[in-house]
């Protein structure tokens, strides 16, 4: 039985750019910005990086494919560099690869960097792309909000919740994240928005309105990971350890087999169950201090609260309206503003989430700082609820 990666790898340093419409900044410079902050934070020499993973989801829209964009931008010294892509879990995939490399003893210091330059597409929303030549013969071309919006009707049908009541809970999700994002200098959207504005916004995909959807942004984030011994050798006192990183990918069960009712995300449940086990967490509701979940859309965050076991089934709308996941609530969610306010430069998002958890655990979060956090959780959900990749990682102090 595998023993997992818990406490075998620590974060030496992290960096994150300001997210937003970085019209004057290319992906290359975003990578440099994130990396230089992480390198300075780590206290390591530039040449100590032994392997690197680049997370970019949409290579045709920004940096190009392969290792070369990262290796060239950072002038890495002919070390092994690999590009990874796993839809919206891409950033966490880069981190997972770097952490596994160190945990395996293949190298002592590894870099994970995610970047995306979405605002060069020339329009709002994610670019529309082929789903594969055979799939294009039959699969509908739905947008991202279109695929996630379907959670709402299915959730209402399963739990007998009126569409208007669900819409109010969804609005609270976005309202709360805008409250948080307003306090974060690195967020793209730094403005509080009223519930009424959210409820009355134009529809994007029924029942998701404009403010139920996350922003579209440019950004990069990076993590340098190493062994606990090397980190201690750098004189670091508070070591933030990787407790777990788990991933779950659809095999067609949701979209082709007749059991799933469309109201939840199976992969989040699978990945969370394994992550809690790997991290040694028995009761997530009392042990997880903050979460950064994949709030691509408000309804995604809503069902994710149940999928992570932080709300009982059918209760997330009520827990949300009760403020359970607000900044001052029991388990704050998106305390940095989330995808809602950072936008979603796909390759960077998972690492941006880890950056906030890392900062919170080190007490660096300024006005957003929560006290007494032992564990922070990040969650990514790529694809669509019916065909997804979910990643769950847990960071905490080294035992």
């Amino acid at each position, binding site marked *: 039985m595998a023993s997992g990666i818990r406490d075998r790898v620590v974060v030496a340093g992290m960096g994150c750019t300001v997210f937003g419409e970085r019209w004057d900044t290319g992906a290359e410079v975003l990578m440099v910005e994130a990396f230089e902050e992480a390198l300075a934070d780590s206290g390591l020499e530039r040449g100590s990086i032994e392997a690197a993973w680049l997370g970019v989801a949409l290579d045709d829209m920004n940096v190009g494919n392969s290792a070369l964009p990262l290796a060239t931008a950072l002038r890495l010294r002919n070390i092994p560099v690999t590009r990874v892509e796993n839809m919206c879990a891409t950033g966490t995939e880069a981190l997972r690869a770097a952490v596994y490399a160190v945990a395996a003893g293949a190298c002592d210091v590894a870099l994970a960097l995610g970047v995306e330059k979405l605002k060069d597409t020339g*329009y709002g929303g994610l670019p529309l792309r082929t789903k594969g030549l055979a799939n294009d013969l*039959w*699969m509908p071309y*739905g947008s991202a909000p279109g695929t996630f919006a*379907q959670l709402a*009707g299915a959730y209402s*049908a399963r739990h007998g919740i009126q569409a208007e009541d669900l819409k109010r809970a969804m609005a609270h999700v976005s309202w709360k994240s805008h409250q948080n994002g307003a306090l974060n200098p690195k967020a793209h959207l730094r403005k509080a928005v009223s519930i009424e504005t959210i409820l009355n916004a134009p*529809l994007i995909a029924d029942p998701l309105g404009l403010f139920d959807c996350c922003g579209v942004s440019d950004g990069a984030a990076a993590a340098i990971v190493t062994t606990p011994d090397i980190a201690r050798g750098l004189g670091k006192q508070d070591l933030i350890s990787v407790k777990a990183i788990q991933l779950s990918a659809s095999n*067609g069960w949701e979209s*082709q087999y007749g059991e799933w009712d469309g109201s939840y995300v199976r992969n989040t449940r699978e990945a969370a169950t394994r992550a809690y086990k790997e991290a040694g967490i028995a009761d997530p509701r009392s042990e997880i201090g903050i979460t950064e979940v994949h709030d691509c859309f408000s309804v995604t965050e809503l069902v994710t609260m149940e999928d992570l076991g932080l709300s009982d089934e059918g209760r997330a709308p009520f827990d949300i309206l009760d403020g359970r996941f607000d900044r001052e609530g029991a388990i704050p969610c998106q305390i940095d503003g989330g995808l809602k306010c950072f936008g979603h430069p796909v390759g960077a998002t998972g690492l941006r989430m880890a950056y906030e958890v890392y900062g919170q655990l080190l007490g660096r979060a300024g006005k957003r700082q929560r006290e007494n956090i032992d564990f922070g959780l990040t969650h990514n959900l790529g694809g669509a609820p019916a065909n997804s990749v979910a990643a769950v990682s847990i960071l905490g102090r080294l035992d």
Partner: protein
Amino acid sequence: VAGWDEDAVTLALEAARAPAGKSDKPSIVFASTSAPFRERLQSGILAEALGLPPSCPASDVGGSRRCAVSALRRALTDQGGDVLIAAGERRPTAPGSALQLSWGDGGAAALVADDGVARLVGAATVNVDLVDLYMSQDHPLPYQTEERFIRDEAVKLALLPAVTEACREAGIEPRDVALAVFHEPVSGCYKAVAAACGITAPNLCDRIGEAAGDLGSAHALFGLALALEQAKPGSHILVAAFGSGCDALVLEVTGALADARAASDALSRGAPLANYSRFLSLCGAIDLDWGPRSELEQRTAASVLARHGRDMHGFVGGRDARGNVQFPKTAIPVSPEADGPERLEDVRLADLPAKIVSVTADRLNFTPDPPFHFGLVQFDNGARVSMEFRDVEGLPLKVGDPLRMRFRVKSIDRRRGFRNYFWKAAPLDRPLLEDA
């Protein structure tokens, strides 16, 4: 007006589905003057969409809007086994033209078989190059000549001689015709022919013109379906269609249609369209600015289509060893109990009942007629497919709503002038026009 994703092929297919189910192994004829392809056998696509075998004889006819009636005559006189004639028409017209107001989109089909409900007792053909209107390589939109000239000359040179001869061959007097299906080039022709030869029967094509417009090659077949709905055994139906001449048939009714109200029902359903810009866009008469999101690459790989086209057109999934049905077929089945590759048994999904698992109306992605309705569809036999929803004309769709499948254009690659076909899910019933 048809939806953006309907064309002569899909309209013909929709009409052909019911009659196709009454024959084991028909040959198939696709009739149209607005076939989307000049080189690509559209009757072959129809055969695949109907689940007919590759050995099914298939041919496309066109050239004039009487092509479907000409094909019907050939099928009735040849001894070549069952023949399914499927006519579809979606003809382009210029904005503001009279034809844009008087023409409609539609499909109709007829099955010729030994155990039919009417038999041919008289037929006549007159070919004459009387150009009442034309569409050409150099002028793709219709150009119409003077209506009074057409009326007078069409009656004299084609319609009256053909009708008279068909009745003579049938051994009946024109006044003995009980119901007329007379597809006239311009109004007034039937009245003139009737006055000249003594026909007193009503022309059922008028009903189609009023409700749906002139359906081109499908018009007379549609009229024949209306006639067979109400004809009494032993009575005679006159079918006459104009287009570079005339084919006239006299049929003696021998039985009753099983689906007795299908044609009338089709004329009574739909949704009113009050937006002329939308109408023009659906007609393809104007090219709107769809924005950069419409610029997605829609190229179809011919090799991929060759591998999967039959299953796509026929909506054929597969049943695994445990009995679970899935679409599309895969080497390793989706069943959680599956433990490696296996061969799946073909299962056609096109005619099976299904329900909505999840749904949305997407206003972000490009579609030629927003919003884009799509979601997960659950078939009663276990298959589950992510699908586009169409014909959302009544109440908003919701989880659990029953669905039926419609053969439609999946995507149009405008850059290369190619189109793909697949099935879309639609509400079980269209709303009644009188309720709108």
